[in-house]
C-alpha cells in the first residue's frame, strides 16, 4: 500500500478522511449474500457446479430445485460448513471464510437437532452467547413465543416432537436479530398450521427488511413470499429472476355471472380470454401494471357483473419449474 502523505490533516478528520467517508457512504450497501463460481465435488459426484447468485439486503429469495440439485450443499458452503473446491462467498459484505461474517446471520438447518439435555430457553441463551449479541431475556422469551413455544420454555428439548424442534430451530435462527436468515426446508416437519405460522414469520421478516434465503419444496410458499427465485438443477443455476420475469405470463381465473357483451369485451381487453360456463380465464401480459386486476374488477362491477371469485394463477411457478427442469430451457432472467 502506498504511504499516506496527507496524514496530519487526515488524522484530525480533515479533507482526506472526509473524502474517504464520502466514498464509503456512496458505495451501495453490500449484498446480504454474494457468491460466485461455487464448485463442490464429493468423490466423483459433482454436487455444485459453478453456482453464482446474489441476495440483496431485505430481499427474500427462494432456492428451488429437485432432490439432489445441490441446494443444501450451496447453503452449507455459504455458511462455511462445507469447504468449496472453488468459488467465493461474501455474507453481508464480509468474506465467508471469516467467522465474523456470520455474526448477523440466522440459520435453520435441514437436519435440525438441538441439545436434548437443554431447555429451549437455554438453547436460545447458548446461541445468543455464541453470537456475542446482547439480547435481553424478555426478547428471548418473545422469540420462543413467536414460534409457539412460549409455554414450553422450561421443558427439555429431548422430549420435543420433530415439529416442535423445527419451531425451536426457527427461534434459534431469529433470536440474535439477524440481517440475513437462511432457512433450509423450514416447514418439512410442520403441520398446515405451522406452515402458515412460518409464512407469517417470513412476511414479518420481509417487512422488517431482513434478507431471507429460503430453500423449500413447497412452491406455493415460495411464490407467496419470495421476491426472486433461483432454480438449481444438477448443481447448476438453471434459471433465476423475479417471479414476474420467470413466469412471464400470469393467469387470472374468475367466476362471474351476469356477464354481458360489454363486460366480455372489457375482459378480452385485459388479455386472452377463455370461457367455460361461469369460469373465465384471462391470460395477462407480463408488462401489465399493478392496478390491472383491481381496475378490471371495478369495471366489471360497474358493468353489473356479479363477481364470485378472482384468483391469480398460482400453479404457474410449479408448471414453469417443471418445464425448466424437464427441458433445461431456463433462460436467465437476471
Amino acid at each position, binding site marked *: 500500500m502506498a504511504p499516506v502523505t496527507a496524514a496530519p490533516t487526515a488524522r484530525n478528520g480533515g479533507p482526506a478522511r472526509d473524502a474517504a467517508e464520502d466514498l464509503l457512504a456512496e458505495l451501495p450497501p453490500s449484498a446480504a449474500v454474494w457468491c460466485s463460481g461455487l464448485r463442490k465435488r464429493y468423490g466423483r459426484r459433482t454436487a455444485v457446479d459453478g453456482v453464482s447468485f446474489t441476495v440483496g439486503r431485505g430481499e427474500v429469495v427462494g432456492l428451488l430445485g429437485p432432490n439432489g440439485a445441490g441446494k443444501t450443499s450451496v447453503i452449507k458452503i455459504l455458511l462455511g460448513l*462445507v*469447504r468449496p473446491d472453488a468459488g467465493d462467498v461474501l455474507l453481508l459484505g464480509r468474506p465467508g471464510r471469516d*467467522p465474523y461474517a456470520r455474526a448477523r*446471520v440466522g440459520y435453520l438447518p435441514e437436519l435440525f437437532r438441538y*441439545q436434548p*439435555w437443554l431447555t429451549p430457553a437455554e438453547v436460545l441463551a447458548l446461541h445468543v*452467547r*455464541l453470537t*456475542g449479541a446482547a439480547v435481553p431475556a424478555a426478547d428471548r422469551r418473545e422469540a420462543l413465543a413467536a414460534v409457539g413455544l412460549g409455554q414450553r420454555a422450561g421443558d427439555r428439548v429431548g422430549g420435543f416432537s420433530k415439529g416442535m424442534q423445527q419451531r425451536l430451530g426457527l427461534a434459534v435462527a431469529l433470536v440474535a436479530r439477524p440481517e440475513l436468515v437462511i432457512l433450509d426446508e423450514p416447514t418439512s416437519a410442520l403441520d398446515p398450521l405451522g406452515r402458515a405460522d412460518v409464512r407469517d414469520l417470513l412476511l414479518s421478516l420481509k417487512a422488517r427488511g431482513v434478507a431471507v434465503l429460503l430453500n423449500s419444496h413447497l412452491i406455493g410458499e415460495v411464490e407467496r413470499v419470495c421476491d426472486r427465485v433461483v432454480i438449481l438443477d444438477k448443481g447448476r443455476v438453471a434459471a433465476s429472476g423475479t417471479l414476474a420475469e420467470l413466469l412471464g405470463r400470469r393467469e387470472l381465473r374468475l367466476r362471474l355471472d351476469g356477464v354481458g357483451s360489454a363486460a366480455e369485451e372489457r375482459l378480452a381487453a385485459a388479455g386472452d380470454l377463455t370461457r367455460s360456463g361461469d369460469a373465465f380465464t384471462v391470460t395477462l401480459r407480463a408488462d401489465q401494471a399493478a392496478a390491472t386486476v383491481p381496475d378490471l374488477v371495478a369495471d366489471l362491477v360497474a358493468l353489473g357483473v356479479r363477481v364470485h371469485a378472482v384468483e391469480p394463477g398460482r400453479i404457474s411457478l410449479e408448471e414453469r419449474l417443471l418445464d425448466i427442469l424437464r427441458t433445461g430451457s431456463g433462460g436467465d432472467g437476471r
Partner: protein
Amino acid sequence: MTARTVLTIAALTVREAARRRVLRALAVLTILLLALSAWGFSRIDAEFGSLTTGEARLVASTVLNLVMFGLSLIATLGTAFLAGPTLSGEIESGMALAVLARPVRRSAVLVGKWLGLVIFGSGFVVLAGLAQCLVVWATVGYWPPDPVAGLALLAAQTSVLLTLGLLLSTVISPMASGIVAVGLFGATWIAGVVGSVGAALDNEGVARVGTVSRMLLPTDGLWRGAMHAFQDPTLLTQAGAEVGESPFLSDAQLTVTYLAWAGLWVALVLGLAAMTFLRRDL
C-alpha cells in the same frame, strides 16, 4: 471472540456431562467401588491383625493402588465414551450445524469441548480419588506420601485419553472412537506390564516394549507416576527386586522430561484433532 466461544462450549460440555445418564452411572460405579474398598480395607485390618506395621503398610499401599487403578479405569471409560459422542455424534445428528454456523472458529469449539471434558474428567478423578484416600486413612490409618501429585497425575492420565478420544471422534463414528480409545489404553497398560517384567528379568528388548508404548500413549507412564505418589516410600527397600514385576507398584518417580512430553503429546493430538475437524465437511 475465541475465548468467549471456548468458555461457552466448555460450560456447555460440563453441563451435558452433568445432565446425561453417564454421570449417574459413574456416580453409582464409584460409590460401589468406594464401599467395596472400605469393606476390604476394614477386613485387612481385622483379619491380618498379626501383620507387622510394615507388612500392613505394604498391603494397604498395594491395595490402594489397585483400587485407584479401578477408579482411573472408570474415569477413562467414562470420559472416552463421553469424548467420542460429543463431537462425531453431534456431527452425525446435525446438532453441530446450528452451533458451527454461528460466528465461531471450529478450533475454538474443539478446544472448548476439550476443556469441558478435562474439567469434568479431572473433577471426577480428584473427588473420587480423594474419597478413596480418606477411606483408606479411616480404615487402616494409611495416608499416601504425595496425594496431590498422585491425583494430579491421575487427572492428567484421564485428560490424555480423552484428548485421544476427541481426535478419534473427528475421524470415526462415536461408538468406534470410544472403543478404540479404551482399547489403546488397555493395550498400553499391558505393554507397560510386559515392559516391567522385561526390566525385572533384565531383558532389554522386552523392557523397551513398555518404554515405547509409554511414549506413544502417555497414559501408562502417568499412571505409574501416580502409583509412585500413592505408595509408601519405604516399600521399595522392603520389597526388593520383585517390585518391578508388580503392575500395582512403581519403582521410579516421573521425570520432568516425561511430564513435558505428556503435555506436548496432548497439544500435538489436540492440534491434529483441530486440523482434521477444520477440514471436515458437515
